[in-house]
């Protein structure tokens, strides 16, 4: 499967359909030049995009703005999407760039973790498993330079090479960030840290 981005860059996807509670089948889709089919396709991917944006932005309202803006950008650039089957990674890339653009443009204020802690209004529904709650909280505590590649890899299905291309980093740097992201999560979840591959201490 190929990503055909608005910029014209492309990459080979390793896994464009990661496990997801929201089914987003893109099999047997009509041609991308059919506006109704395309709007339907975009809309079907919206929950995935919103989830991705929420894990990046850690703010529901900002995530909704990002997805809205991304869908408008995608709609304007719809001619760049040659293969509807590549819509998901294409849109995820747009969302990531919109998130990065928003932070660069607005220099958003730092968000206190107390403000972004998951609400516990429906603890029985949302988090029946305490360990999972701790882990979700730990993921949100990760600095963006670790959270972003992790979310791209796990939710986006992007390979380390694709993430490196998207973040303009070397593959080794991405591997190190992914290693450290998981190592920090281990520590935040009360597990022992694995010895850091770069030899530096890993602090939460």
């Amino acid at each position, binding site marked *: 499967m190929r990503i055909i981005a608005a910029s014209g860059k492309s990459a080979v996807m390793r896994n464009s359909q990661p496990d997801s*509670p929201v089914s987003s089948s893109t099999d047997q889709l009509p041609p991308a030049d059919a506006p109704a089919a395309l709007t339907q396709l975009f809309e079907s991917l919206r929950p995935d995009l919103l989830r991705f944006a929420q894990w990046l932005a850690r703010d529901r309202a900002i995530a909704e703005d990002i997805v809205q803006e991304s869908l408008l950008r995608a709609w304007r650039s719809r001619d760049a999407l040659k293969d509807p089957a590549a819509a998901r990674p294409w849109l995820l890339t747009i969302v990531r760039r919109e998130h990065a653009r928003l932070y660069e443009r607005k220099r958003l204020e730092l968000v206190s973790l107390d403000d972004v802690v998951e609400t516990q209004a429906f603890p029985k529904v949302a988090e029946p498993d305490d360990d999972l709650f701790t882990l979700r909280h730990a993921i949100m505590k990760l600095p963006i330079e670790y959270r972003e590649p992790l979310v791209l890899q796990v939710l986006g299905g992007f390979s380390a090479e694709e993430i490196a291309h998207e973040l303009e980093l070397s593959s080794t740097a991405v591997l190190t960030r992914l290693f450290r992201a998981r190592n920090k999560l281990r520590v935040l979840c009360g597990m022992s840290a694995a010895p850091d591959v770069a030899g530096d201490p890993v602090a939460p």
Partner: protein
Amino acid sequence: MNCQEARLQIGADPMAHSAELQEHLEGCADCRRFHAEMGAFEADIRRALARPPQLQRRARVAPPLWRQLALAASVAAAAVLLAGVWLLRPTESLAREVVAHVQGEPNSWFATEHISAADIDAKLRQAGVVLDINSDQIMYAQSCWFRGHYVPHLVVQTAHGPATVIILKHEPVRTRQAFQESGFSGELVPVGTGSIAVLTRGDGNIDDLAAQMQQEVHWMPDAH
């Protein structure tokens, strides 16, 4: 590949299985242990990320007027776009997603454990639903994430065998529609501003259950 390289690869992508790594693991018990540990942890990470975080909306400083006007124009354009999407969205895609969801929970058909009426009621109320049905008929009850909302996913024992009922408060359908997809027979039934999906394996009769559910489901006005 040495231990440091193996650990970097495992820690960076525990799901990766390169031949080089495999070869190293066969001869290194420490890295094999680390691989197993990270594999289990990775499953938790994937489960943790599978749902969006439940975030509170934060109050933000009002932007300048020109930005508000630009935003209003964008919102209006988006509303038109979404209205178009909403009107054009075919019910077939909803049916397909319902079937895909049910296929993702194959064990639901074989559930035999008794579920208390209180548990069922709690699951339904979490999704903003009240259901007047005999709890003895319900063999399986879960709150499932579907199209951006938690929805009740039930398996009900009928005279014709088990049938799945998914209550879709946020998915309106215009008329009652039958569908056949991937070995399942189903119906989408409008209820108020939402709908109910009833389906069974093969060609089972679900008309009675669909009609019953249509009568017995009520939306809670104050639900999220």
